[in-house]
């Protein structure tokens, strides 16, 4: 059978690799629909023919479970926030650079739309900087973590909060370049990415098989490879 | 037959024809000053303006009844617009084809397409785009296009205005052929009295948006105050035909057709006239200015036409001038314009026999 799985855009690469591995193992087919988590949710709520949903957060999938549209919620990955800059030495003196504000733009994802954005906001708030930079118009806001990443890697923003997975990806355009600092994990709420099986699926067993695979060792290995923590 | 009463308001201008009724066969001329509403009436008759109101019948077909008009495309009219209105996306040939392919097939034999092309002289233009033709060329194409559509009625808005005299003459011949031989009722707007006198069977006079009167050509030419005369003074138009003098191809004369049972044909020697291309039925146009009167025949004068005539009546045509209406031997009318003094000196009066002197006469064109 063929199942269709909606995947939060930040998980694109990992999902493709997982999908290929599962297809080889199970003999079933999986097709993906990548997109921003919010759009995928709206689509599911309006009849999109998806069998499972991998969000970038936990609120959205839970919403579906509450509405009775989904089941079997689980966290499939835990994202890690990273501060990245092409030329500012954030790896050495991140706190000072953040505190000085001696940069024109800091990129961060939109806290309303992306969990990494909320995490970045929390990191800055912890240091009492968020309001200041926001009011000063120094925060360039990406609608997704990908755009945030592009703002930084193209040099339009001097530094930015991105996902560690984006830096760890071997094909990342900045792999091995620039400077990275990992804010302490306790400075922000865990970035948990939740998945659910959708009740409208016509092949619940196949979906279950796929989700089981994701949770299994093979899946976890791939997920970890792309820079996510696994539960 | 056209009968009706049409109104059409365009902007500030109100065309309210009033009742009119005229035979449609042959040629009807619409005559009137610029801005008098000729084009507006023609458009209303063709059904081109949906604001047209009133009544219009063509024979027993109702073309307009109140707000309801028969759609223009079903009136079967061939129209020549004042500005040609060619289809810019088609060649000359394409324009003719457009009309031809939409012509009713059961009117097959009507008018020969090749002949129309030849007579309008547009043969060399057939494969040209219509965007860059000269003014006269455009007009001739518009005429050809209207004719190849084999319409039941032909309507033309100043079709000859942009043409040189030779093209005019050729097209007048063509119109005459088409109208005479194929009996296509024609309504045409023209500013040229000479065209009216040459072609028209009746004249619709328009003024300030109104049909002032409808007269047969004879009637229109029979009153001295006719609008047709304001330019050149009174004119007579005689029916007859052209023939050779003694078989000499270069000498032509015009022989009139008697209008009464006892009438005798009258012969006019024709002047040099570049347009004298054809024989057969024609009209002869004689300006009153060109007709002198004498009591008897004169010799030793280069006056070719000295015709016995009887004075029908004498009207005042302008201050100090009289129009003398004459009846020729064939029963047709000739007019002479002379001064009051000449009438007095010569003692002219109705009923008298006189000699009408016409130096040479021009064919109406």
């Amino acid at each position: 059978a063929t199942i269709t799985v909606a995947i939060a855009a930040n998980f694109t690469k990992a999902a493709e690799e997982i999908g290929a591995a599962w297809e080889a193992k199970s003999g079933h087919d999986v097709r993906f629909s990548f997109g921003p988590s919010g759009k995928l949710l709206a689509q599911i709520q309006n009849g999109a023919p998806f069998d499972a949903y991998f969000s970038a957060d936990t609120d959205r999938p839970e919403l579906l479970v509450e509405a009775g549209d989904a089941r079997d919620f689980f966290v499939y990955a835990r994202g890690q926030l990273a501060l990245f800059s092409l030329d500012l030495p954030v790896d050495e003196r991140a706190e000072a650079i953040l505190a000085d504000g001696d940069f024109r733009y800091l990129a961060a994802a939109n806290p309303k739309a992306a969990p990494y954005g909320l995490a970045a906001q929390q990191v800055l708030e912890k240091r009492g900087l968020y309001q200041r930079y926001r009011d000063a118009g120094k925060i360039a806001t990406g609608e997704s973590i990908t755009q945030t990443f592009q703002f930084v890697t193209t040099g339009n923003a001097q530094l930015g909060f991105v996902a560690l997975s984006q830096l760890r990806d071997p094909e990342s355009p900045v792999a091995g370049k620039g400077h990275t600092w990992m804010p302490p994990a306790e400075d922000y709420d865990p970035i948990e990415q939740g998945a659910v099986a959708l009740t409208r699926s016509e092949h619940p067993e196949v979906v279950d098989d796929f989700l089981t695979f994701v949770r299994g060792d093979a899946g976890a290995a791939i997920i970890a490879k792309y820079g996510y923590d696994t539960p | 037959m056209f009968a009706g009463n049409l109104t059409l308001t365009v902007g500030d201008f109100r065309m309210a024809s009033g009742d009119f009724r005229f035979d449609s066969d042959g040629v009807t001329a619409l005559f009137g000053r610029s801005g008098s509403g000729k084009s507006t009436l023609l458009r209303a008759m063709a059904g081109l303006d949906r604001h047209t109101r009133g009544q219009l019948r063509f024979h027993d077909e109702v073309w307009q009844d109140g707000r309801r008009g028969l759609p223009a495309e079903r009136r079967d009219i061939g129209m020549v617009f004042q500005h040609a209105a060619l289809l810019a996306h088609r060649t000359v040939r394409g324009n003719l084809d457009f009309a031809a392919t939409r012509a009713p097939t059961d009117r097959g034999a009507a008018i020969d397409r090749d002949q129309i092309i030849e007579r309008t002289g547009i043969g060399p233009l057939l494969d040209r785009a219509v965007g860059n033709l000269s003014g006269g060329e455009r007009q001739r194409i518009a005429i050809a296009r209207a004719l190849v559509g084999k319409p039941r009625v032909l309507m033309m808005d100043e079709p000859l205005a942009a043409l040189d005299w030779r093209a005019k003459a050729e097209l007048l011949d063509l119109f005459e052929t088409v109208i005479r031989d194929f009996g296509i009722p024609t309504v045409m707007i023209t500013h040229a009295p000479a065209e009216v006198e040459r072609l028209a069977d009746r004249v619709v006079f328009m003024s300030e948006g109104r049909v002032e009167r409808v007269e047969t050509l004879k009637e229109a030419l029979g009153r001295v105050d006719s609008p047709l005369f304001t330019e050149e003074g009174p004119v007579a138009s005689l029916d007859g035909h052209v023939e050779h003098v003694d078989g000499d191809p270069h000498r032509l004369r015009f022989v009139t057709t008697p209008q009464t049972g006892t009438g005798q044909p009258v012969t006019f020697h024709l002047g040099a006239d570049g347009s004298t291309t054809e024989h057969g039925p024609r009209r002869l146009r004689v300006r009153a200015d060109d007709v002198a009167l004498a009591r008897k025949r004169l010799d030793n004068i280069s006056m070719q036409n000295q015709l016995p005539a009887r004075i029908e009546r004498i009207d005042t045509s302008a201050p100090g001038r009289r129009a003398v209406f004459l009846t020729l031997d064939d029963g047709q009318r000739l007019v002479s314009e002379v001064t009051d003094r000449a009438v007095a000196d010569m003692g002219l009066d109705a009923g008298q026999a006189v000699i009408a002197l016409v130096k040479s006469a021009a064919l109406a064109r």
Partner: protein
Amino acid sequence: MTLFGIPLDTHPIWLTLQVAAVTTILLLLIGVPIAWGLSRMRSRWRVVFEALVSLPLVLPPTVLGFYLIIAMNPNGPLTEFLGRFGFDGQLTFNFAGLVIGSVLFSLPFMVQPMMSAFQGLSEEVLDAARLMRAGLLDRFFSVILPLSRQGLLVGSVLTFAHTVGEFGVVLMVGGNIEGQTRMVSIAIFDHVESFEYAQAHLLSAVMVVFSFATLVGVYLINRRFSARLG
């Protein structure tokens, strides 16, 4: 398929061209009559309709898409209404959805240029065609459209190009389903998301080159045609 050693999934390309072509054709069928109707409308309401036609543009595409999937929800009134006529499918997340969204969003691109072309037509020439016995349909195809071909060209080019590049609406309404509703614009987006920049650039380049060639071809044909008619 690979090009310059870079893997290239051709399905989105074909899909995009199909959607763009179908959208353009449908908009010719829908937009041209709307434009004609509006251009001949004498009522005072005309301005309202004219403004309505352009409204799809003022909403962000994804938001428009959002409203569209709500409106076309399989349990929604529209699908139900169609159900009464025996329609038992779904309007969204399939080819139909892509086309419906694209048609709606590109409507102004077709209607506006056509309206202005129609308004520029010479009344006298249309009258001449009527008197040559061409009824409305005949006139429309044999006179009105050919004389408005500049407007047709602009409308078709804008519609086609815009549909090729459109992202927000097709993402929402189509659902970006691999092998089914993934259009080139979304595929490029996906490649960028997963750092497959080479593939993203290649796909962009393919679309740009292809579109460029198509446009040059269209303009060349138009030029020939115009030249022939002076």
